């Protein structure tokens, strides 16, 4: 089955600074890849997804992610972080044509300093 690793449990950045959250996946074929955000007391919200085509995908709230097959990575980036971006971020991988479950990483908690 597919799996996801998010190496950073907690990241702190200053407001206005750039951000990169790391995600590595394991899957034997071409995966679906997703980034979700979870704010306190709220459900998971999709930021962006990749399933084919352009390896640089744009999402909501100014986020983007780049699929790198050679590195089995799908890192999330934002050029300038806003205080409202403080939340928990989850990378997830889904499978082509086989089992239909989606596997999530353990998450990275983002703190934004004023």
């Amino acid at each position, binding site marked *: *089955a597919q799996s*996801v690793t*998010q190496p950073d449990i907690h990241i702190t950045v200053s407001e206005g600074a750039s951000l990169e959250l790391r995600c590595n996946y394991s899957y034997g074929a071409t995966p*679906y890849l*997703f980034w*979700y955000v979870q704010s306190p*007391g*709220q*459900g*998971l*919200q*999709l930021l962006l*997804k990749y*399933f*084919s085509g352009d390896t640089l995908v744009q999402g909501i709230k100014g986020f983007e992610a780049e699929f790198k097959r050679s590195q089995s990575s799908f890192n999330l980036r934002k050029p300038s972080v806003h205080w409202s971006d403080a939340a928990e971020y*989850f990378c997830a991988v*889904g*499978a*082509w*044509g*086989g*089992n*239909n*479950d*989606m*596997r*999530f*990483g*353990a*998450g990275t908690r983002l703190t934004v300093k004023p």
Partner: protein
Amino acid sequence: GAGVSQTPSNKVTEKGKYVELRCDPISGHTALYWYRQSLGQGPEFLIYFQGTGAADDSGLPNDRFFAVRPEGSVSTLKIQRTERGDSAVYLCASSLTGTGGTRVNTGELFFGEGSRLTVL
């Protein structure tokens, strides 16, 4: 409704009791998923329904956990003889057609806000 609805939002029960958690997916979504999220962890897959049938229940931790979706819409997750280790947020998600299948399938999951289960 417009989104995925889960009830109850909070449930406190005693060890050994039986619990039911309900999920009402987005209308028209054929795929429904249950996940469990423990504190500080990512969502852990439990079971996936395509229509009325459980297409993949490999994530259910043991036979105390069971889920149904008799009419292909609302789903109920049932936990028998609850244990303290069952305490977690149980998340439900729905999708138009599921995350796998054909390449036209975008696979986005829409999540409810979860049911927080506390077993004392």
